[in-house]
């Protein structure tokens, strides 16, 4: 029986990974299309990002003298961590039976491993811009970490577990926790975290051409061909999985609780709907935003930290009294 359960959970994991890989270019296409429509443009087709990716992956990478193995290994490492996130997080189904539970701290460390790979690729290019992007990226990541942990921790208190699947399952069972003040505070912090972590406005402008304002783009200026393809796909996949997680935390319905084919299919449909919905919403809001000055970003992050901190303290003090 163990083998059968293991097989089922492996299959669900593979479905999740495949779903994220397939969904990612579509998500980016939808976000670009949304933005284009609001700006009065026609915009590219929805399949354009996947065309771009396939072309990049087929193209030759260049390697300049003075760059090291990290320039080659970093993109693969980023891509591998993004796949790990897709495998670990509760996206299509909540699974706690797997050998590696989707513990919050494990997930965050995998996320950070990807961030570090990207930062090292930026440093390895040996150009001023690569280092600059890397430095900014790591500063933001460092200041984000307290918010990430506290925000998700605040959500985890009702579940009494730091395993994300348990959190989502608990929220699905008791909808009252979803709209509690603690939960809303934590979600607001989480949204800030996701925007900053994936380099969206107002922290970073994904479509900038001006090197001095870049964060993410500056790190990949030196990468080309296949390397760039992995970097782009890996970074976009982070957006997909984080939006998927956000979707399942805010609206924990539809996600499969077992490995039965029908529920998994339903979970898949729900995931696609949630991710695309959130993506379109973010793209629409981005039209109204300008990038904030880089040195104002820490203030933004501090504000989101305060929200997360309030959420945890409130839930400690308030539920402590109530129960």
């Amino acid at each position: 029986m163990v083998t059968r359960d293991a097989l089922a959970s492996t299959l669900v994991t593979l479905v999740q990974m495949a779903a994220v890989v397939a969904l990612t270019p579509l998500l980016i296409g939808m976000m670009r299309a949304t933005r284009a429509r609001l700006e009065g443009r026609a915009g590219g087709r929805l399949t354009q990002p996947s065309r771009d990716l396939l072309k990049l992956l087929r193209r030759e990478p260049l390697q300049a003298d003075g760059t090291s193995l990290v320039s080659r290994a970093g993109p693969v490492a980023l891509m591998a961590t993004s796949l790990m996130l897709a495998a670990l997080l509760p996206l299509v189904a909540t699974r706690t039976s797997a050998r590696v539970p989707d513990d919050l701290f494990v997930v965050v460390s995998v996320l950070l491993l990807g961030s570090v790979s990207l930062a090292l690729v930026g440093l390895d290019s040996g150009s001023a811009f690569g280092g600059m992007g890397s430095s900014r990226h790591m500063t933001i990541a460092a200041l984000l970490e307290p918010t990430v942990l506290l925000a998700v921790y605040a959500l985890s208190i009702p579940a009494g577990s730091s395993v994300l699947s348990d959190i989502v399952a608990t929220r699905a069972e008791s909808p009252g926790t979803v709209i509690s003040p603690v939960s809303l505070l934590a979600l607001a912090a989480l949204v800030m975290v996701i925007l900053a972590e994936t380099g969206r406005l107002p922290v970073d402008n994904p479509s900038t051409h001006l090197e001095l304002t870049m964060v993410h783009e500056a790190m990949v200026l030196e990468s080309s061909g296949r390397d760039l393809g992995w970097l782009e796909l890996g970074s976009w996949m982070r957006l997909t999985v984080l939006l998927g997680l956000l979707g399942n935390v805010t609206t924990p319905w539809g996600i499969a609780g077992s490995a039965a084919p029908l529920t998994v299919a339903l979970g898949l449909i729900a995931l696609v709907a949630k991710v695309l919905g959130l993506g379109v919403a973010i793209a629409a809001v981005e039209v109204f935003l300008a990038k904030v000055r880089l040195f104002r970003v820490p203030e933004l992050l501090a504000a989101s930290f305060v929200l997360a901190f309030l959420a945890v303290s409130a839930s400690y003090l308030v539920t402590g009294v109530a129960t």
Partner: protein
Amino acid sequence: MSPLVWAAVTAAAGGSVVSWLAPAPRRSLAAGIVAVLQATAGVALGVAVLGGARVDMALAPRGTALAALGRLTVQPTALGALFLVVMSAVALVAAVFAIGYVRGPSDSRTAWTSWFVFVAGLQLVAVAGDAVSFLLGWELMALGSTALVFTEHAARTAVRSAGLWYAAMTHLSFLLVLSGMAVLAGHAGSVDLDAIAAARPGGHTATLAWLLLATGFLTKAGAVPLHVWLPRAHPEAPSHVSAVMSGAMVKAGVYGLLLVSLRLLPAGPRWWAVALLVVGLVSAAYGILQASVTSDLKRLLAYSTTENVGLMITTIGLADLYRAADRDDLAQVALVATGLLVVSHAAFKTLLFLVAGSVLHATGERDLDRLGGLGPRMPVTSVTFAVGALAAAALPVTSGFVAEWVLLQALVRGGAPSDPVLAALLPAAMGVVALTAGLALLTFAKAFGIGCLARPRSDGATAAHEGSRWMGGALVAAAAVVVGLGIAPGPLSRSLASALAPGAASASPLGGVSLPGLGIGLDPLGLTLLALGCAAPVLGAAAWWARRAPRRRVELGWGCGGARVSPRMQYTATSYAEPLVRVFGQALDPRRELEVEHYDESRHLIHGIRYRHEVGDPVESGLYARGLRGVAALGERARSLQNGSIQRYLGYSFGALLVVLLVVSAW
């Protein structure tokens, strides 16, 4: 097991003799091998005790001069044995490294003798069964390490001031511990640690003893604000010595704190625990913040030691707090976290200091701003550096990740505590620990990325080369321990649980840590397999496309079409940390100087620009500088007492005599 004790003692004595007799060209090998034996004896003894062997013996033979000090009992507990293994293992790896590394003053007779004294002191502290042998070990450790810090005093003047700071602070620590032990021994009427523990002092005696001991141990551990010796002594000592100082010696302070909180004064008031927790958190945050903005590799590692020690102290305070709140299960988890942090930090910090030694040996530079491009030039050093940096940044799959994971579990598993103090402290602690982890990530991405990647920034770095095989072997061994503990922490966490938290039945499998009573486990082996499983398809696809479009080497990186692409245009460690200096400006006290020189002809033409950027240590410049100024002012005023007149001096003597006589007669 007493033969192992005598083996360690003999090795220490014999090693000192060997280092005096062996001729210079052979000295490092001869003395180094004895040092390896000394450390091995310590590891073996510790493992035997952890395996259940009992040792109870006196070091001082009856009728000898040593016996005047007391019996000098060697009676290691499981806790002491754990630290004995950690300290000896660190010394073992560092000794192997030293064989290939030492030269000049660090290969002198004095240096080697000091080494043996130092390591013997460390081992004695861990196994001591009474206060006298504990203090003897403490002082041997202090003396040996002070001599070693002074090793290169002739070559660099910075060494002298660092050595003075270190000597002052380490003896402050000794005096505090001595006084604390004296208070306890006076109350118990015995110097035996068991007797002291059984006496259970209370009230003001306990508070006084706790304050003295805790301050003494915190000084040795390098906690803020008593850390000032650490960022001076670690960088200036030879690197293999820095490795032992950071990997093993500061652990003596942690061992002392554990000794106090678990054995000597276990049932203290809650403010002790809160004080430890706060000191720990402040040390962690301050240490890593300083580490993140410094560009001196060894200074960076030293500040990171303050950070890690801070985390250990946090877990000790947390365990005490949980115990006071009747949550023994959580207290045990916190103690297991302490143990994992100790072992993990010993492993990776030793590795990183040895890496710094290897870099220094090869390039003559320890300033990250002048390094770079070491990857292809020093492959072994660079790869082991990467492993150590991953562990220091607490990323999988290294020992650092496992330790951090258990620490965070200990913090979040408190649930919603009904106790308001815990409810207020835990979220704050979690925020600080998470910020610490984030900054550690930046710090070590910077250290590794600037040090090893891209192009060399100085001639020294351009000419870098790998050192001897002894050095490479030591690096690889230390890296293997870091990764091994990261992939299979099961046996370690089991023995930690039995040594630190007896009664906690932990059934951790080989590949993972499972926390007793919490129903959660970490399986790094599974995580590793998952990572390999995820990397495999990516690598496969990359290999498939690589056949159609192979990688092409080009001469120049993209520098926006610029014709002058010099390595000096790369980001440096200083520039990397610049955003952080802005964000944390108030806590870092950065100083910037900008001088613009103009041509005589016109103020509009610039001849040259000089820019200086320095980040100080506000604790040092605020607290210590003010204190030292006060002492100096006092001394200045005391000079008026000395005016050279014989009559006045005779008067002083007479007065002093009178006072003594009065006191004696009144007694």
